[in-house]
């Protein structure tokens, strides 16, 4: 065990953790918006919208995240007309390709989590609102959404943790996130165990924080 190496790589890895956290938070924000949108579409009676939402989640949950990143990064880069279009400004950057892949992926899982939360809401709540003469819109915003969010907290906490680990794939498209920098240090020191233990410890610590934060929310909003 090279303890000196572990100590000297720690600040570099901590710096790279910022990139990881940026990737994670942006993807989660975009993913939550996408997830909510597609969950609502999924509950829609319109068969076209319904099926569209179903296929979105089917495709992104049915393929590995790594494959999705490669298709978005290397795959789209091969298409001539995309390269000459304005979209290339975004797709040219590995950072945005990673964000797009992560958002679409977590969006698919989030939509399923929210859909099942919506579906399990006790019909009595809605009927109670109805009988008080509250409009459909208000019932949705004031009753359905808050309950659905509370219901989905445990599953969504899991999704955040999975996504945190998923961001390590950003290093496959040249980004210098926590895993990317760990690999870089290993490539010059040839000591993978020490460096990966430090990097793994940082991931573990972040998971610990996320886990406890979600548990705190669960307690706070329990009913």
């Amino acid at each position, binding site marked *: 065990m090279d303890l000196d190496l572990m100590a000297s790589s720690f600040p570099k890895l901590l710096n790279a953790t910022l990139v990881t956290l940026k990737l994670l938070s942006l993807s989660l924000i975009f993913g939550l918006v996408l997830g909510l949108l597609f969950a609502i579409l999924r509950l829609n009676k319109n068969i076209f919208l319904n099926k569209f939402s179903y296929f979105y989640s089917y495709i992104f949950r049915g393929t590995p995240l790594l494959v999705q990143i490669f298709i978005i990064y*290397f795959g789209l*880069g*091969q298409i001539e007309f995309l*390269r000459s279009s304005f979209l*290339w400004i975004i797709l*040219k950057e*590995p950072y945005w390709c990673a964000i797009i892949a992560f958002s679409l992926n977590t969006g698919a899982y989030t939509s399923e989590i929210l859909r099942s939360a919506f579906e399990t809401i006790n019909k009595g709540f809605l009927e109670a609102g109805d009988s008080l003469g509250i409009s459909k819109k208000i019932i949705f915003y004031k009753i359905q959404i808050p309950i659905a969010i509370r219901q989905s907290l445990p599953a969504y906490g899991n999704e955040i943790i999975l996504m945190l680990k998923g961001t390590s794939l950003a290093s*496959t498209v*040249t980004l210098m996130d926590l895993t990317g920098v760990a*690999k*870089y240090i*290993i*490539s*010059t020191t*040839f*000591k*993978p165990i020490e460096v990966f233990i430090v990097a793994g410890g940082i991931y573990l610590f972040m998971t610990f924080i996320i886990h406890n934060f979600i548990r705190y929310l669960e307690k706070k909003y329990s009913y």
Partner: protein
Amino acid sequence: MNVIKRFSLGLLITLFLSITANADKIRIGTEGAYPPWNSKDASGKLIGFEVELAWTLCRYIGQQCEIVEQDWDGMIPALIMRKFDAIMAGMSITDERKKAINFSQGYADEVASLAVMKGSNLEGMQTSEGINLTKKSGAVKKDLKTITEALAGKTVCVQTATIHQNFLESGDVGKINVRTYKTQDEVNLDLASGRCDVALAAAVAFTDYAEKSKKPVVLVGPTFSGGAFGNGVGVGIRKDDTELLKAFNSAINKARKNGDISRIATKWFGFDASM
């Protein structure tokens, strides 16, 4: 119970036998993604200059060999952790790597070069044909200055943990925007897509790609050797494996004397890259 006992005993014996059988074999690690040094054919079989040379060297050593595939960025750690006993993966002999492992004498050498897509404004860079960084004469310094100016503000792509990355980060060409990839294939893809303004690798890696993909990849600037680019490509061996190092060194001597290395090199590179 008896059946289980007998079965596990049998399993143990086979396991033991297979381990001892493996012990006689020299396992050689290669990447399989760096043509023409080493690559894979359509059926997934390892081919290339070093694969053919490895079999030849094993014949001279007089021992059975097995060629093992390993990702480039984990090559040296895998050797140290005994996943295999020798590296033949286009790995240049550098001082940095010598701190971790030993190298046999060099068996081949070739130059590095920058590459761009046709139409890039780097085309027609005015430098000499080739520069050797071991002796930094006035002419070499002048060329490095030209390259530094040409690369300023450009995204330069390179495979990770290579001599080419070392050179770009050595400060010889100033502080530049380096992007690293896991494989040379990915560098080529992003050079062609335009994400990379310019790439640095072995010159043959680009000419090989241009030929196979029919993409307009062109070499620019001088060819590089010496200094950060090391002293040829050798067999990487663990520090404590001195016997194996001797065996490889004498096998390389014999193969060189009989003309095997230059014959195989010419077959794969199109020119004699042996040394």
